C-alpha cells in the first residue's frame, strides 16, 4: 500500500541547505529565498509523489523548475527592476561567492549550468544529478565536464581562487 513518508520536517531539514545553495547559484542570493519557499511549498503539495530512492534529486528537480520560472518571469518584465534600488547585498558577504567564476557559470548552456550548480554548489552525487536532470549518469558527467571545459575558456582561474 502507500509507502511511509518521513515527517516533512525531516525532509526539509535534510535538504534545506543544499537547495538554498543551489538556488543561490542559479538566481542569486537576493531571489534565492523566494524560490526556496516556492520549491518547498510545491514539494509539500506533491509530497506523496516523493521518489524514496532519490529524495535529493526529486526536490532539486522542483528547485530547478522554480529557478527557470524565475528567469522567465524576469525576462517578461520590460525593464527588469530598473527603477528599483540596488538589491540589498546582505547575503553576499558570507556567501564566499566569486562573482566572476559563478557569473561565467550562469552563461553556460542550461543543462551544463544546472549540472555544475548541483555538483559544486549543492555537492550532489552524479547519481543524484543524473536523476534530477532525467538523464544517465554518463550524460550528467558529460554535462559537468563540458561545463568545466567551457569555463576554462571563458573564466580563467585567477590566482586568488584556490589557496588552501
Amino acid at each position, binding site marked *: 500500500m502507500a509507502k511511509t513518508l*518521513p*515527517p516533512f520536517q525531516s525532509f526539509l531539514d535534510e535538504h*534545506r541547505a543544499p537547495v538554498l545553495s543551489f538556488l543561490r547559484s542559479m538566481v542569486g542570493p537576493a531571489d534565492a529565498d523566494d524560490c526556496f*519557499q516556492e520549491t518547498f511549498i510545491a514539494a509539500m503539495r506533491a509530497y506523496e509523489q516523493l521518489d524514496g530512492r532519490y529524495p535529493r534529486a526529486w526536490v532539486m528537480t522542483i528547485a530547478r523548475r522554480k529557478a527557470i520560472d524565475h528567469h522567465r518571469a524576469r525576462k517578461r518584465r520590460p525593464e527588469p527592476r530598473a527603477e528599483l534600488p540596488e538589491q540589498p547585498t546582505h*547575503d553576499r558577504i558570507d556567501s564566499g561567492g566569486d562573482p566572476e567564476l559563478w557569473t561565467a557559470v550562469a552563461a553556460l548552456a542550461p543543462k551544463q549550468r544546472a549540472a555544475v550548480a548541483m555538483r559544486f554548489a549543492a555537492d550532489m552525487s552524479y547519481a543524484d544529478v543524473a536523476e534530477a536532470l532525467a538523464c544517465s549518469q554518463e550524460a550528467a558527467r558529460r554535462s559537468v565536464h563540458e561545463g568545466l571545459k567551457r569555463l*576554462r575558456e571563458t573564466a580563467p582561474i585567477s590566482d586568488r581562487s584556490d589557496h588552501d
Partner: protein
Amino acid sequence: MTDPELSSIERALRDQAPRAAEPEAERAAARLAERADEAGLVEVAYDTVDTPVGRMLVATTPRGLVRLELPGQSFEQVLEDLAARVSPRLLELARRTDDVRRQLDEYFAGSRREFDLPLDWRLVRGEFARRLLGNMTRVPYGEAITYTQAAAQAGSPRGSRAAGNALGSNPIPVIVPCHRVVRTGGAIGGYGGGPETKRFLLRHEGWLD
C-alpha cells in the same frame, strides 16, 4: 577528471560556491513553515514545551491537540509515528502550539486547574478506550478514581485490567488526566511517563502529600 586544469576549476567552484550558511537555511526553513501554514498545508504542527518534569512534545492538527509525549521517550520516533498515522505533512510550528504551551505553563505554575483545549481523539483506538479517556476529563483536579471505577464508568464489565491498558495508551497525557487513576488501596499504579512523573503530578494537584 584527470585534467589538472579542470580539477583546479572544480576546486575553485567548490571554494567559491555561493553556499547558504546553516543559520540562513534554518531561517528559510522556519519561514517556509509559516508559509505552509498560511497555505493550509500543515496537517500536523508540533513543538516542544519545557515543564518541571522535563521537555514534552506536543502536536496539534486542525481539529485540536492530538498528541502529548512525556519526557524520556524518543521524540523522533513519535514524529515518525505521527507521520504514519496522521499525516506526513508535519512541521515544527510554535504558533500552532502556543495555546497548549500557555495552558501547560499555567498548570505547572499552579494557576490553572482545567485545560480548555480542543482535542483530536483520532489516535485513540477502540470505543472502550475512547469512552474511558473521554470520562477522564471529568475527574477533577486534586481527585483520583480507581481503575475499577474508571472501567465501570466506561460501561465495561472487563474491569480494571482493560482500564489500565486503555489509560496506558492515552496519546494526550496530563491534558487527558489519566494520572488521576490509582490502585484500590492507595498505590498510585503505573504510568507511561514513569511513576515519578505520576507522583509529581498527583502531589502537584494535592492528592498526594
